[in-house]
Each structure stands twice: as C-alpha cells, then as structure tokens.
C-alpha cells in the first residue's frame, strides 16, 4: 500500500494546478462517458441516494467484508467504506492503460529473470549493480532458479494516478503480495445492485472472470510437469487484515485455503493435512510475505509458512506464486529505472510514464533535493506504509533539518518526488455528491501469458482535500467501470 500526502498548504511556492476531474471538463461540462450516470443521478433524491448507500454498507457488513481494528483490549471489525458512485473509464483510455501495464509487467518479469540469472542489465550498467544486489528485497536464494514462463510476478497490482493534464502515470508497482482484488469484485457486485439500469445501459466490461483467470494463471505455472495441478491459497490466517480476500479467492477458485500449520514438507514434496491423510500440493498462491514462507530459509521465527518449503520449490516440486524476491522490482529506487528497463528489454518507450523521481544517491539530484526539502516528498527506499517519510509542505524546519542530516549520511537510502495531485471523482458524502481524490489499482496476471482485468480498485480519499487513500487512514473504495469499445468514447 502506498501512502499519499495531504494537499499542500496554500503558502507552498509550487504553483497549484487544479486536479483533473474525472466527471467534469474544466468548463463544467459532463464528460461523455459520465453522461448516463449523471442523468441517473439527477433523477434521484438525496434521500434515495442515502438509502442506496445504506443498502451497500449493509451488503458489505453481511458478507463479512471487514477489516479488523485492534484495540488495547478488544478488537472490532469495520467495513471499508465503499462509495456507491462508480468511477468510469472510457474505452480508449483503458486501452492505453492496458497496453502500458502489459508492457511494464513484461519488462519487469524479464528484469527479474535477468537479475536472478545472467545479470546482463547490471553488466551493461543500465541499472546500478549495488542498487539491486543490496536491496533488502533482493533474494540471493532465487539465483539461477527455474521459474516457468519467466513469470515471477504472477499477480501484480500497480497504483496509477491521473495527473492534472489527464494522463495516467504509475506511482508504484506492487509485485509482492498485492491485495485489494476482492474489493474490486465486491464493489462490482454491490454497484450492480445499486445502479442496475445504468449498469446495463453503460456497456461495462465484465470482471467476473478474474478468479477463473487467476486459477488458469496459477495452473499454467505447473502445467509442464503436472497435467492437473493441485492449487492452494496460503494465508497467514484469520487475523490477517486481508483474510477476507484470501478466503474469497479460494472460494471463487474452488481451491483449498491453507495455513502454514496445514502444510507438511517431506522429501522435498509439499503436502497438506487432510481428513484422509496427506495430499500433494503443486502450486501455492501465497499471500504471505517472502520473509515468512519458510523458517529454514528466511525468518526463523515465522510460523506462517512451512519449514522446507523453499527447498521443495528449488527442487522443482512445487511452485510458489508470486516468486520470492519479486520485491526487488518494485523497490522505490529501482522504480526510477523502470522506463530504462522497458527500453532495455523491449526497445520501446514506456507507454505509462513514471512520476518524476530524484535519486539521492546521485550527488546532483541530492543537492536538488536538499535545496527543496520544503516542497518535495522524501521516502526511505526500504520502508513502506508511510514510515521514514518526509512530507515537505507539511514539515517543520526541524524535521527538514533532521532529514537533511539523514540524507547526507545515507543518500542511497532515499528518493524524493514532487507533490502529486490526484484526480477527483464524484462521491456521495453525507447525502451530497462531492469531488474527492482517487487513485486506480488495476490487477495484472502473468503466467503463460499476461492478462489485464478490465476493471480496477479505485481508492478514495474520503476526507475533503485529502490525498490519503489508505483504508487505515480514512480511505475508501468504489467500483470502477471500464466501458467497452462502442460506448462512452468522446465523439
């Protein structure tokens, strides 16, 4: 999960650009692909809208689509707020996103295959060697290990944002254990109930096949040695915040949901304990981080995986999806090189641009960052979840000085980016339709081939003016309608 910063205060020197509005043009006209929804909304009273919002919340609660908030003594389950107004993407825009994501994941898989074998790209000096080999997410255990189809990141969730000029850009790749796809599917189920007529008329592309495509992707990873492989989903367990999603995917794929304690590794084969004894497993869609999958290979104190699992993987008797060590390709510093990586392997320019990123390891860029600490966002490379971050426009002089020292002491550990403006989409806030900032997380599958699901999780910063879309910090989500070719394109 990425963390966004709050809107810059008005005294920031950088020019304030109005965010891109998903529904309205700068002249206040409704964009063509939003016309049907707009027409429908104008026929509904605020009370009717509120009633629909309540219906949707009840649907989520009943389904148990909740996350757990742990308090001092007790824990409570809450639903992740789901906004009833869909975010709509026109066909032509989606075509570009789809092409861009496919290209990006192809290149990143090639990059992973390369750095875990010949390391040609490092020898050619396109990406600095130490940047990759010293990244905490680099796993030397993966060196020279055969990965079918060279598909390292079988499930990828990239965070896109739409910039003020309307172009989508990639803020972050997520090649480890991306989550959120169950919200994409649940939001769809809910919005079909809330706006059935509009949904039917709009020509929304279906995302229902996601579980089926995921299963096909996973099976393709073992297809060359097991005709009908046994696939399982490995979850850390019911106390994990994404547990609902793990159970949901297992249920929709029709495969067992296993925990570490269900697994037994014997003679480099992985088995699960069933009522009738042990049963062999071929493909593990793991929703457990690299560090925890095997206490013998990675963290010793982990009980979430199975001892010996990695050796079984090395021996080619089981496939772990995503492959361990994929995190090195979504490392915050490596991110800056993705356009070059695409160019290097595919000879193409990146279809989806990156956000401008300053690498503090480069002296020239470091001095630029040091001179603009009050405007930039500085992130520690290894950290995630908003830790080790300086949000320039919201920081005090003392914090800036502290970061300046840290930057000088260990420049390689930091990157900086300009403050980003997210686009806005209409949301139902307290019975009224208001604009809120949104991002976009599409899901891409790669096995024998790469498939982009025509839909996404749109995350919403529900607080006015906020750019923080994380569910832990007042974020919500909404359905994302990708329209089919014939509908909704600008005439």
């Amino acid at each position: 999960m990425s963390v966004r910063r709050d809107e810059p205060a008005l005294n920031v020197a950088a020019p304030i650009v109005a965010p891109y509005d998903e529904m309205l043009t700068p002249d206040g006209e409704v964009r063509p692909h939003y016309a049907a929804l707009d027409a429908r909304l104008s026929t509904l009273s605020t009370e009717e809208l509120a009633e629909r919002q309540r219906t949707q919340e009840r649907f989520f609660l009943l389904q148990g689509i909740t996350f757990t908030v742990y308090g001092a003594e007790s824990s409570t389950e809450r639903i992740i707020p789901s906004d009833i107004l869909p975010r709509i993407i026109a066909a032509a825009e989606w075509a570009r996103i789809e092409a861009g994501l496919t290209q990006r994941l192809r290149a990143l898989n090639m990059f992973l295959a390369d750095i875990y074998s010949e390391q040609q790209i490092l020898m050619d000096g396109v990406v600095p060697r130490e940047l990759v080999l010293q990244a905490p997410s680099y796993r030397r255990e993966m060196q020279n290990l055969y990965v079918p189809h060279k598909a390292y990141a079988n499930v990828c969730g990239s965070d896109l944002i739409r910039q003020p000029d309307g172009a989508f850009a990639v803020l972050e790749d997520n090649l480890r254990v991306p989550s959120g796809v169950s919200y994409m599917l649940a939001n769809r189920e809910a919005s079909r109930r809330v706006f059935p007529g509009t949904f039917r008329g709009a020509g929304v592309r279906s995302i229902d096949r996601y579980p089926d495509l995921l299963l096909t992707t996973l099976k393709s990873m073992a297809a060359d040695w097991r005709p009908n492989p046994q696939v399982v989903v490995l979850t850390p367990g019911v106390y994990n915040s994404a547990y609902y999603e793990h159970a949901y995917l297992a249920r929709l794929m029709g495969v067992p949901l296993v925990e570490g304690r269900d697994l037994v590794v014997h003679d480099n084969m992985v088995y699960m304990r069933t009522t009738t004894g042990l049963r062999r497993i071929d493909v593990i869609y793991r929703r457990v981080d690299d560090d925890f999958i095997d206490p013998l290979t990675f963290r010793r104190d982990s009980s979430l995986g199975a001892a010996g699992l990695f050796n079984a993987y090395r021996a080619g008797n089981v496939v772990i999806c995503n492959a361990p060590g994929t995190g090195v390709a979504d490392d915050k510093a490596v991110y800056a090189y993705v356009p070059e990586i695409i160019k290097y392997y595919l000879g193409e320019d990146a279809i989806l641009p990156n956000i401008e990123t300053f690498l503090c390891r480069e002296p020239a860029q470091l001095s630029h960052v040091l001179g603009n600490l009050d405007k930039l966002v500085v992130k520690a490379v290894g950290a995630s979840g908003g830790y080790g971050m300086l949000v320039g426009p919201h920081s005090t002089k003392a914090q800036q000085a502290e970061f300046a020292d840290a930057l000088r002491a260990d420049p390689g550990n930091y990157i900086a980016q300009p403050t980003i403006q997210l686009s806005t989409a209409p949301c139902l806030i307290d019975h009224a339709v208001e604009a809120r900032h949104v991002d976009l997380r599409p899901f891409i599958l790669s096995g024998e081939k790469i498939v982009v699901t025509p839909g996404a999780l749109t995350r919403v910063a529900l607080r006015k003016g906020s750019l923080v879309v994380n569910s832990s910090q007042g974020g919500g989500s909404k359905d994302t309608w990708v329209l089919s070719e014939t509908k909704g394109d600008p005439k």
Partner: protein
Amino acid sequence: MMLARVADSLYWIGRYVERAEHMCRLSDVMLNATLDRSEAASQVARIALAAVGDPDVAKAKNPYDAARALALDRGDEGSIFSSIALARENARQVRDQITTETWERLNLIYLRMSDPEAGRSFEDGSQLFLHDTIADLHLFKGAGDATMSHGEGWSFLLLGVYLERAQLIGSLLEVVFGEGRRRRPISDHFALTSVLRMGCALEPYLRAYTAEMQPRLILQFLMLDEDFPRSIRFCTQEIESHLSAIIRHAGMAGSVGPDRLAGRLRARMQYADMDEIHAQGPSAFLKTVLDECAAIHRSLYDTFVAYPLEDRLPA
C-alpha cells in the same frame, strides 16, 4: 478430501450453534416460567441452570438476571453470545467452505448479538430476542441444508450438531431424572411441561402420549424415540450415518474406530429397555451414553484431525 483443520472447524461450528440454540431455549423456558408461578419458576430455573452446568444455585432466585447473563455475558465462555461468536469465528476460518447464504445467516445473528444495543433489545423483549435467535439459528441450518453440498464437510458439521445435542439432552435428563442428587422427583405438571419445552419436545410429545405428563414417558420420549430429532436415539442414528458417510468419502471402510463406537451407541439406544433402565436407575444409563459420546469425539480427532503424521507419510 478436505483439510483436517477445516473439518475441525466445521465440526465446531455445528457444536457451537447447537449449544447456542439449546441455551436460548433453556433461557426462554426459564423466563417463561417467571410469568407463571414463582415457586415453579425457581424450580424450573434451578433445572435450567443445572443443565447448563452453572453450580450457583442462588442465581435461580432471579431467573431474569440469570437469563440475561446467559444470553449476553461476553466474559462467560458458556454464554449464548460466546457460543455464537465462536461459531462465527470458526466459520470465518473456513469461509471458503461454506456458502454465502449460510454464512450470512450466522453473521447476521452475530451482528445482532454483538451490537451495542443488544442489551437494550434484550430488555425490551427478552423472549422475543431469544425466540428470534432460535429462529435465525434454524435458518442457518436450513440455509446450509439447502445450499451446501451434502458431502464430507456437511457431515462434519452435522456430526458436531448431533454429538452436542446428544450430550446436552443427556445432561438435561440427568439433572431432571438422575437419582444422584437426592431431590424429590419432579412431579409438578408445570415443571414437567417446562422440561419438555427445554428439549423443544412439548408438541411432539403431546402427539405421541397426549397431555398426560408422566416422568417415565418423558424420559422415554427424550431418550429413546426413534423419530423425534432431539431424542438421544435419533442423534445417535444421525451420528452413525454421518460418520459412515465421512468414512465412505475417505475410502477408509472397515478400518476406523469412531464408526464402531457410534454403531454400538446407536444399537444401545435402539434396543434399550425402559424397565431395565429404571431397574438400574437412569443415571447409570445416561452416564454410559455421555461417556460413549465423549469417546466418539476423541476417536474422531484421532482418526481425522490430529492423527500422527508418521502413519500417513508416503513410503
């Protein structure tokens, strides 16, 4: 084929929902008695509290508070709330194994009982509250029956239901008819009717034996009736049939322990003789039944859930 952990969870869902339902019914009967005569009320309350295993006799003086605590006390592992919460927690752990329709019913009950307003709903209409909970538990079982595959998982769930039910009814009968407690035999018509209500057996009993309330017939009905779904005999028939279904799924015919135990218990109930039971005293017979239920539970674990790995590793 199913994960041993999953089978375990399904089994406990069955046990906990059955326990919750039984507790609701005991509370309901207890509250109902308070509306009538105070003397009988405290006798009924004593029976109900003893049947749930609460040793504190003093609570019987205030059946309403006892019922409220039994329903909603979060700190008490034996409360209805705790049983529902545990059933749901188990269901959450095997959410991929139960249908959405079934899950929704159970989740709904949990959401109502865990609502901050639950205490007030109980005070506003305690019997309605309990009645609704029982009805929703029936809906849960009905949704499962109508939407879940009647395979191995379903059999584990029902095994939990019927083992729990056999043990709960057995404990209730021991409290009412057991000779170990040096109490006057219960002969009061109202108290006997209440006992039947606790087993949800009043109407079926009336059809079988008319309105004549005879302790011996009540014991016979709740213990040995072939068709009444809450008699111990009926439970043992179901336990045997679900166990053999599981063994059939597992392809383990003829080699396992729990089905032998279940078959013996079923036969014990099928061929039991009321005169003999009375001659030796119902307590001895009920103790055998409860012990054998516990043995089936242990054997089930040893065979399907917590078996030693060494026996099952491929050669």
